[in-house]
């Protein structure tokens, strides 16, 4: 591993530790919900990083279709995989929060529904990749689908802002007056939130880079194995 990679990982680990400490020590206890509100720092950070990953997959896919360079497809693939993990964490942390606050693990709220749609769309992306034998066709189809799939991302973002929802909007305005579990941010909460967002974004970038490198190494190995087979 090169020096800058070690430095990058070191900073990420340090910030993750700091952010976790801030969530449990520095950030104040929310008056109505109590300690369960602290999960929001993880929930929002993982959701943000997940959607960022899908944006990276979109950019990588467009770049692949323009250049047909495999590295862009490998980047998109890695971004979708990491994004799916992060979005899964966002959904699980949301559900853990919802149980005590909404008195249910799950409800058919527009935000929850659209987030799950996005999650399923990117799961379908991986299934599509798995169903195609030819590497070039696989990359091409995956790139096209990643572009179509991204259409669901703004829908998820807008769903809690345009539709009647009980999902709280912590950052930015909301038209819904039915939000349950809404809370205001104190300065310490804002600091913790910003720190969490930065730390998780860095963690995403590290995971993406590592997955991308593994992807490249794996494909190179497969190519070498195939070349070694007698024709």
């Amino acid at each position: 591993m090169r020096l800058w990679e070690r430095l990058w990982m070191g900073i990420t680990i340090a910030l993750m530790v700091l952010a976790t400490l801030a969530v449990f020590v520095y950030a104040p206890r929310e008056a109505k919900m109590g300690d369960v509100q602290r999960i929001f720092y993880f929930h929002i950070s993982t959701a943000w990083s997940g959607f960022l990953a899908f944006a990276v997959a979109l950019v990588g896919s467009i770049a692949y279709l323009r250049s047909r360079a495999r590295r862009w497809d490998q980047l998109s693939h890695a971004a979708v995989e990491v994004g799916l993990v992060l979005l899964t964490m966002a959904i699980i942390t949301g559900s853990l929060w919802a149980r005590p606050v909404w008195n249910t693990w799950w409800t058919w709220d527009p935000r929850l529904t659209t987030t799950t749609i996005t999650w399923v769309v990117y799961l379908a992306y991986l299934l599509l990749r798995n169903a195609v034998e030819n590497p070039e066709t696989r990359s091409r189809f995956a790139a096209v689908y990643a572009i179509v799939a991204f259409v669901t991302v703004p829908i998820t973002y807008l769903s809690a802002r345009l539709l009647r929802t009980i999902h709280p909007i912590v950052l930015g305005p909301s038209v819904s007056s039915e939000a349950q579990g809404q809370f205001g941010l104190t300065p310490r909460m804002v600091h913790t939130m910003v720190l969490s967002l930065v730390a998780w974004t860095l963690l995403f970038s590290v995971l993406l880079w590592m997955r991308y490198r593994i992807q490249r190494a794996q494909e190179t190995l497969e190519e070498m194995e195939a070349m070694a087979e007698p024709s």
Partner: protein
Amino acid sequence: MESSPVLRLERVSKAFGPRWALREVSLAVRRGEIVALMGPNGAGKSTLLRVAATLLRPASGVVWVEGYRWPPDGAGVRARVALLGHQPWLYPDLTAEENLRFYQRFYGWSEDQEALWRALERMGLAERAHERVRGFSRGMLQRLALARAFLSPAPVLLLDEPFTGLDVVGLEQAREAIRELTAQGRAVVAALHDPAAVDVAHRVVVLVGGRLVAEGPPEAFHERALQDLYRTGYAAHGLPESTSSRKSLLILGRPANPGTAPGLHPAEPAWEGGLSPDLHPVREAAISRALPGETALRSGLASVVRPMSALLWKDLRVEGRGRETLAPLLTLAGLSLFLFGAAFELRPDLARAFVPVFLWMLLLFASSLGVGRMMASEIDRGTWEGLLLVPGDRSLLFWGKAIVHGLLLGLVIALSLIAVGVFFNLSLWDPRVLLLLALGAAGLAGVTTLLAAMAMATRARELLLPILLFPVAAPLLIAGIQGIRAILEADPSGWGTWAQILIAYDLLLFTVAWLVFEEAVSA
């Protein structure tokens, strides 16, 4: 004086995964020339023709046809080449004459009935022109496919195993037709297996392991010479001592064992300029007439409307005769509504809440099953490749198919609304409901056309299409259901909001599907 090449491949390479199918192949073909492409199985002959026809994108290198360069200008090259593929690209439920007429219109060729009949007569099919192709033998299908290739005004004909399945009469007719076309100034590249068939060519080039390894006059490539060349070509590109016709062959590439082939020539394609002396004289005037590309690319609206209307006509006729998709789909829709009603025994108030859900679910399933089936038929018949060779922008194909698929969904909606009226005593013939359903059908038709074109080319096929489609279409479904519910509950502001969401998502989805379609289908 020799004319400049009409088709030129410059260091074209193509890989499938880690394996090279073509490696830096250079080839130049002039008007009036017939080049036979020979090589062992898997040598890359079909790949070379498919790259030249723009069905495959080269990994490196370029193809030039009359000044049009591929990549990137696939549309320009497509307008100037005609390909006869492995599969005949014929519709079993159309007659021989209808098949040719469809391709005439779809490819933007002149709709000259006389030329069409001449092509049928030339291949001995005039008497069976009005018979459906379904009953044709393999040899007759090949004759018809050849007739289509000969009908094309393109200056370059690429023929992949043109004599497969032909009897001796058909073989002679095909050879004669090829000679006639080259006398008119066309260039022909034909991938051949049988050494006995190469005498039709002026020049033979041999591909082994994706490389051009030898070229020369046809008489030099008798069976024994080819056997030796195929056996040794993979390893050395050299010519064994036993090959008696060594002097008349030009071997390309550096030999691994120089001792076996003392008279080798350098690897550079010096043969590019060398034409056989017995070429037919080229009548340049014969090819000065409008080429399909010129027709298609220059005439604006007609170039869009003609292929789309041809596609619509073809799909409706094929569906009307084969009843492969619509009839089962309508039956399934009616049956589903009946079972739904019987299972739930909905009261009128509950019906108002549940029927919109079921209607949209039905639309979604109809889209996946119906459009998937239609696309699978195209791919299974091999006709999809024929459609991809449309001169010009392939988004024409997207629009044409989306319109057909939209019509299919429209018919499912119409039948479902009638069934809803009968089974649930619920009239949904409100213009606002129809607008929402029409918008939903349009969006679904667009995105399903794109996704089906990809899914049907994968291993999982019918199973994969709903997995790809349903989550992407889910916002359409939600907006549509809520919109119809709002109409039934007399909530004007509610229906307006959902209609706006539906329109916005519809436009977004359709536009994205349209923009990426060309990339999805361009290998």
